[in-house]
């Protein structure tokens, strides 16, 4: 029984994936016996049913993940470790899945025929991330990393349009496959050095005999996860993928998959717990990533592209917390990631709602692109959405009293404690640059007039979600003591083995 309890959230995800799969092959299945009209009708039914199953099922998984929070121990011959850290991250991932499912519901630019499969891949990808945070063994880690990644590659081209999403998808895929091959190469060297693929055993072996080769192996091994986090220089896919994929897919990649990437990085960095030079590597990547991301974001005219580059910069801030490899830094990084998830979901809520009003282009098919000018006069057209956008952007810019401010404060404090004062100074300068481009978007929404813009009528649920998540971002920022002690305990348990 204990085994099932420990595996409860994953079992829930598997059940949800199975349900979506059954919908896609039964109701949505192709049948030659039907005429065109009936077939269309059945596809519509399948899309409707899978939307509802996906949303309700992901809420169910959230409940299961909350039920399984106090589970502890290992599964599958020590390949899979369940603890407070993994269970907390699983709750956050489930919440991220609920958000992404809700944003993707009734998406008009995902073809009706593909909808059940789209949601199936979203579920499977989240399942992969959930298993990633528990993987205590390199083989498990690799297999579930690819499970979560391949589903993302397939979600990107699932959009109606003229084909530029195929281009983005191929770039995403080829960068992902290359970095995962590089990271596998690093893993084989780790295996050669330690003679085992168990993460704690490798950490012990590397600690006993530190060497340049060990450092190189760890750096190579983490590239696959750095790619998922879109840290410079592994970010090239991010702007293209965000810009042309459907809003639902982009929200999932920008929000939920980032949580998975950070948690997986924390887990994988355990192999290098005693490799001191990692400090310099992670610090260098942090500086490069935040500087490049912020400078590139300034020039963007497309909101999703801007969010992609800002995501590169945010990845840099998160790396600041990881460089010391201590529990304070890990806590700060996880706290910031949770806040970031909520802020990105807020921005995408606005993107989805505004995207519904944009004129259909590209041969009668909806466009996935969202220029910043489409937000003009948002405060007159829908004050609630404008507020949600404001909270999301100011949170990312690190303005109090949002979670973004508290998170950055914790990150900078953790970095100063490991004597990275100069990096914190650079991060501070970067943050000032970042405020500039976030304010450009805020200006479009609050200062520009609404003349000539289509009417915006968000539903009651959208308004409630906007207000609710905004309150959560502020609440998390004002009362960090509600979350941070739990994270602290989780990180101490994680680092203690």
């Amino acid at each position: 029984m204990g085994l099932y309890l420990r595996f409860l959230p994953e079992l829930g995800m598997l059940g949800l994936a199975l349900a979506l799969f059954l919908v896609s092959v039964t109701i949505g299945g192709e049948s030659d016996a039907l005429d065109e009209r009936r077939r269309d009708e059945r596809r519509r039914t399948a899309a409707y049913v899978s939307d509802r199953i996906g949303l309700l099922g992901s809420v169910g998984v959230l409940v299961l993940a909350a039920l399984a929070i106090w589970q502890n121990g290992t599964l599958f011959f020590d390949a899979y470790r369940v603890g407070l850290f993994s269970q907390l991250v699983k709750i956050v991932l489930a919440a991220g899945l609920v958000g992404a499912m809700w944003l993707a519901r009734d998406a008009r630019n995902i073809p009706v025929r593909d909808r059940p499969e789209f949601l199936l891949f979203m579920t499977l990808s989240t399942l992969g991330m959930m298993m990633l945070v528990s993987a205590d063994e390199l083989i498990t880690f690799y297999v579930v990393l690819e499970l979560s990644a391949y589903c993302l590659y397939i979600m990107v081209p699932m959009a109606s349009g003229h084909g530029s999403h195929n281009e983005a998808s191929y770039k995403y895929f080829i960068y992902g496959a290359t970095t995962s091959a590089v990271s596998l190469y690093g893993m084989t060297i780790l295996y050669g050095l330690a003679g085992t693929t168990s993460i704690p055993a490798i950490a012990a072996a590397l600690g006993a005999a530190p060497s340049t080769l060990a450092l190189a192996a760890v750096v190579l091994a983490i590239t696959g996860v750095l790619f998922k986090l879109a840290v410079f220089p592994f970010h090239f896919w991010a702007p293209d993928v965000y810009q042309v994929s459907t809003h639902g897919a982009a929200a999932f990649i920008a929000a939920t998959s980032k949580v998975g990437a950070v948690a997986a990085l924390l887990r994988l960095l355990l192999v290098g717990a005693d490799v001191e030079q990692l400090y310099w590597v992670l610090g260098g990547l942090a500086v490069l990533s935040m500087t490049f991301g912020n400078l590139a974001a300034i020039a963007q005219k497309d909101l999703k592209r801007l969010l992609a580059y800002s995501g590169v910069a945010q990845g840099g801030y998160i790396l600041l917390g990881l460089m010391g490899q201590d529990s304070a830094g890990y806590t700060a990084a996880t706290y910031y990631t949770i806040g970031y998830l909520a802020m990105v979901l807020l921005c995408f809520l606005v993107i989805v709602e505004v995207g519904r009003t944009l004129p259909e282009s590209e041969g009668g098919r909806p466009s996935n692109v969202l220029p910043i000018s489409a937000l003009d006069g948002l405060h007159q057209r829908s004050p609630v959405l404008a507020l949600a956008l404001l909270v999301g952007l100011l949170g990312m810019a690190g303005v109090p009293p949002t979670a973004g401010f508290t998170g950055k404060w914790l990150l900078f404090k953790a970095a100063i404690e490991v004597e990275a004062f100069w990096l914190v100074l650079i991060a501070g300068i970067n943050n000032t640059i970042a405020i500039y481009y976030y304010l450009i978007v805020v200006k479009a929404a609050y200062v520009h007039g609404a003349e000539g813009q289509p009417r915006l009528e968000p539903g009651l649920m959208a308004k409630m979600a906007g207000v609710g998540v905004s309150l959560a971002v502020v609440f998390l920022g004002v009362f960090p003591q509600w979350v941070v002690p739990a994270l602290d305990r989780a990180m101490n348990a994680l680092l203690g083995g």
Partner: protein
Amino acid sequence: MSEALSSYLLFSCAMFAVGLVGVLLRRNLVAMLIGVELMLNAVLINLVAFARFTDGQPGIGQVFALFIIGVAAAEAAVGLSIVLAVHKARGAISVDALEELKG
């Protein structure tokens, strides 16, 4: 480190480099995919050589290799289907067909 092991490692390192250069320099989408496959095969040789010549947990290297072979098959399927989609949309499978997104 024995003589035999280092020669295997040198070979796999060279093969990995060939694959990486292939991904970075080739203009054909399928050829880039072949580059990735070469990199993965270099990884396999590494694993099997380590499993044969070092005394760690027995069998784990070969098992890892089998898993990678399985995942690589899935990777080829996903990659080729995307290439097919590109070909349907653009009528070409060269990188030059993919230069719409910039900035």
